[in-house]
């Protein structure tokens, strides 16, 4: 789709956002993750509101750059990217499609909802490889801020779990 300053619409901008993948979890788009919070458009500029998953997430700079690039490539020159901290990002915003994509990529999607105060307690995480529920937590912190490290007791494979947050 070729967008120009004249025909760009909010919908078209959202579609472009769907094409940007998270640099650390390339099967998920930034809209699957719920990182793009809002898009505002007026005659002179487009403003994209993004929220960080974790305060120190190093992917945010890359994501902002990719947003700028794709809009720029689509003929939109005046772009503003605003970081929005509140409401704080939560995995509750992750789309169902996103969860399915995570699973087939080998990462267990978040279990439960973040407002459930028991989410930090013992929970059942399904092994994304053999679908066994007999798994154990190896470490609360994994290869990126948003993941924990689990292992399957049946197929013995270690796997990443996308933490409920």
């Amino acid at each position, binding site marked *: 789709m070729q967008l120009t300053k004249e025909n760009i619409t909010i919908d078209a901008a959202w579609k472009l956002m769907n094409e940007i993948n998270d640099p650390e979890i390339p099967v998920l788009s930034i809209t699957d993750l719920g990182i793009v919070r809002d898009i505002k458009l007026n005659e002179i500029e487009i403003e994209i509101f993004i929220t*960080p998953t*974790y*305060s*120190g*997430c*190093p992917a945010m700079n890359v994501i902002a750059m990719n947003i700028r690039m794709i809009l720029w490539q689509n003929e939109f020159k005046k772009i503003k990217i605003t970081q929005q*901290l*509140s*409401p*704080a*990002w*939560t995995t509750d915003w992750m789309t169902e499609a996103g969860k399915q994509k995570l699973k087939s990529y080998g990462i267990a999607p978040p279990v439960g909802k*973040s407002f459930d105060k028991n989410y*930090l307690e013992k929970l059942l995480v399904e092994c994304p490889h053999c679908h066994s529920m007999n798994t154990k937590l*190896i*470490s*609360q*912190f*994994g*290869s990126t*801020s948003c993941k924990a*490290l689990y292992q399957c007791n049946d197929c013995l494979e270690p796997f990443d779990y996308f933490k409920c*947050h």
Partner: protein
Amino acid sequence: MNDASNNFKLLKVTPSEGFREAFILHLADNSLIMGHRLSEWTGHGPMLEQDIAISNIALDLIGQSRNFYQYAAQLININNEREVSKTLYPGEDLNEAVATEDSLAYLRDANEFKNILLVELPNGDWAKTIMKLFLFSVYQLYFYQKLIDSSDKQLAAIAEKSLKEVTYHVRWSSEWVIRLGDGTDESHKRISNALEDLWSFTGEMFQPADYENSLLQKRISITVSELKNDWQNKVRNVFEEATLMYPEENIWMQTGGKNGTHTEHLGYILAEMQFLQRAYPRCEW
């Protein structure tokens, strides 16, 4: 020596930030210095998973400090007419100098840092690092739970964001305190020694600085002394499970960090952390 470093001059205006800026810098400095200390473990953790865990926690804390520094810089630049502590890069004109998250982290000197003393203490062994992180994380947990209601919307937003991360830090460090306290004779001895070394640095958390007191009326800051009960209860419960003695509360406590009077350790941290920006101003990679 290149020209830039020959010409490098530090020009400082009397530090008299507004109370709000000082309060925000205090929070930023707490997170940055704690995060920097933890990052010293990266590549040296006792096992790979724990190396990754402590590096992740360091990243969270440095991320939190960035949010605070960005906000402080924004306020400092808006209130430019107010005399603000600014450290200048070579060739930079005082009237044109702009505060940034980097200038606040990399160009202030030790006496301008407002972090509590606890976070700047050396890591020591794994037990001491864990105990320090535990005592601090429990404090951050209750602090942010209150700061969420700050009348300052940006501070409330940063608190809301940080709180989720700190919840994990408390959980992880509590488990380690219990594991070491209720572990072997050696691990019990080490975590007990750590507690003894660190205890006199905990009182400062609950003693407000002037800038905290003066922001209370507008409900920007919080009453830190009110956090003490919750903090004590949580710490006491974890210590009980860890078979650790809860120390005497009414001992003489170390203070000063909140107002810029630090232990000698902070200077060494800054020397390492700030070296590059001071030797090669504005360098990036």
